């Protein structure tokens, strides 16, 4: 455990290339403990890539990433330590279809944290209850709706007691009427003080919970500001064009 004043996530001069394509250019970002950050920007701007670097689903080539005082290198121990701190929710849920909702939530606690099954199940039921889906615990992912699946995915992450949660466009694969139930769950998490980095275009969510909004374009952070300022008074013309298109 790191000291309380160390940043939860610290990105320094982060650079990444896919072959010739420069996806991330000199990213510098410091996230305080308990801070909620919304990342937006046009598609292909590198926002997903950036947060996927934070738990090493993508490798970076230059610069440094430090999560809770642990630097991400190719040292497998550090990678495991970081992944234990960081939970992730994906655009397409990525639930395990061969396991029940409950088993999805207990798999990692049992095999990674070596938790007794009963304890893991109790913990899973607690979080499934928190995301209001405990009554579906024994169904398979294919048997519940998209919104419910995404809430299970959130519960699955929470079962590993992460200190930081990453959300990669968690609502963009959902039918409109299911977006709210997932956002409500995320708002609940935010109110409990979870450190959150969230790639989303849900501007209502950004206004409601974000401490900072970050706008990315062509692999770099173009603008970062408090949500009020960001939406009412964007500094960069690129931000302005983007906001005009989505609002």
């Amino acid at each position, binding site marked *: 455990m790191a000291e309380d004043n160390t940043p939860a996530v610290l990105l320094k001069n982060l650079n990444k290339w896919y072959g010739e394509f420069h996806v991330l250019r000199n990213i510098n970002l410091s996230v305080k403990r308990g801070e909620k950050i919304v990342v937006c920007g046009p598609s292909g701007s590198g926002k997903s890539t950036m947060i996927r670097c934070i738990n090493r689903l993508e490798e970076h080539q230059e610069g440094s990433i430090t999560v809770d005082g642990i630097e991400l290198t190719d040292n497998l121990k550090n990678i495991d330590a970081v*992944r234990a701190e960081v939970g*992730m929710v*994906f655009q397409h849920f990525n639930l*395990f279809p*061969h396991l029940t909702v409950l088993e999805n939530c207990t798999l990692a606690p049992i095999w990674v944290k070596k938790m007794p099954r*009963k304890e893991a199940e109790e913990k899973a039921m607690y979080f499934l209850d928190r995301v209001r889906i405990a009554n579906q615990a024994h169904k*398979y992912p*294919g048997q519940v709706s998209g919104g419910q699946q995404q809430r299970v995915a959130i519960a699955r992450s929470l079962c*590993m007691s992460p200190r930081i949660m990453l959300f990669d466009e968690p609502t963009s694969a959902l039918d409109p009427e299911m977006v709210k139930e997932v956002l409500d769950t995320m708002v609940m998490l935010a109110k409990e003080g979870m450190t959150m980095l969230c790639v989303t275009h849900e501007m209502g969510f950004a206004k409601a919970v974000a401490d900072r909004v970050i706008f990315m374009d062509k692999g770099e952070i173009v603008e970062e500001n408090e949500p009020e300022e960001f939406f009412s008074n964007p500094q960069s013309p690129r931000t302005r064009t983007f906001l005009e298109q989505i609002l």
Partner: protein
Amino acid sequence: MAGKTSQSEGASRTVSDVLHNETFRAILAQVILVGAVVLAAWYLVSNTLDNLAARQISTGFGYLTKNAGFEISDKFISVSAANSYGRALLAGLVNTLVVSLISIVLASLFGTIVGISRLSKNWLVAKLALTYVEGVRNIPLLLQLIFWWKVITAIAPQPRDALQILPEVFFSNRGLNFPLMSPDPVWGWVWLGLLVGIIGAVFIWRWANKVQARTGKRPGSIPLYLASIIGVPVLVWLVGGAPTGVDAPVLGRFSLTGGGSVSTALLAMIVGLTFYTSTFIAEIVRSGIQAVSHGQTEAGDALGLSRRQVLRLVVLPQALRVIIPPMTSQYLNITKNSSLGVAIGYQEIASITNTTLNQTGQAIEAIALMMVVYLSVSLTLSLLMNWYNHQIKLVER
């Protein structure tokens, strides 16, 4: 008159209605089809019976009890020239099952390794696997069987110069000769001990699951498995007086006698069937693993599961449901392809049927019997695999 006209118009409309009725047409088509099939069958059967009668060939399965009069070189049940055709055919069936079973096990193991190698990030390993798959699966199996048979008979030395590849294990152009333990009643008990040991390992596995569920820590059970599977039979062997008599092959002038042996033909069959089928299994395994979306691996990674855990707990259970149905087809193919043994003198059921019908002239019965046997073996295998497939099926809705 007007009434009558309208009535007949009504009737004619009804006939036309019936002719255009969907149900009527469906039934009519089926009646015509069934009629054609029955007619064709009747023609074939009556024609055959007429011809058999004209040539004075008797029909029936009486020939099965007659003396076969030929020897079988590879045998896993006792059979000799003095036995009946029925017994010879049974020995042939056993030979079919033996070569199929061995090839199924080896092809599955080897094919899985090659399939995973094709996905390797190591360039050389991946390309070697690709070359192997594309080379071997595109050459007809019959040619490969003849090739292996030729290689072994042409390159391997005469029995008197047999290569001793392991102590007391000889390789010559007659095949492989290896030592067997001398017969002793204790060996029966040792085999039983092995069975008990394997059952014991299953119990240890279930015990490990329970301990893990209760405490979270999985006991290191691999030494326990080994202790059970190896220890129990060894213990039985020691208690039984530890017989050590060995029946080793003896190098004669023209052949090797004593011990156990595997003929050139069986060796070529196993090598050929294994290599050929492993290429198809490799492709099935590769496509099965690739069918599991990358998001599944990422979700496992993000939860902190190790690479091995992701493979074992997330990817493989899902890949398996894609792999099993085509794998069943390959197992059936091995069983049916073993009939190519007829080309290189491996006496499996097709080969023995061939000899039988040559000697007795009971072509229809012999062929029919062989078809029934293959059908039964294949359907049994199919049923088993379908049952297994059902066990691991995904629940969708």
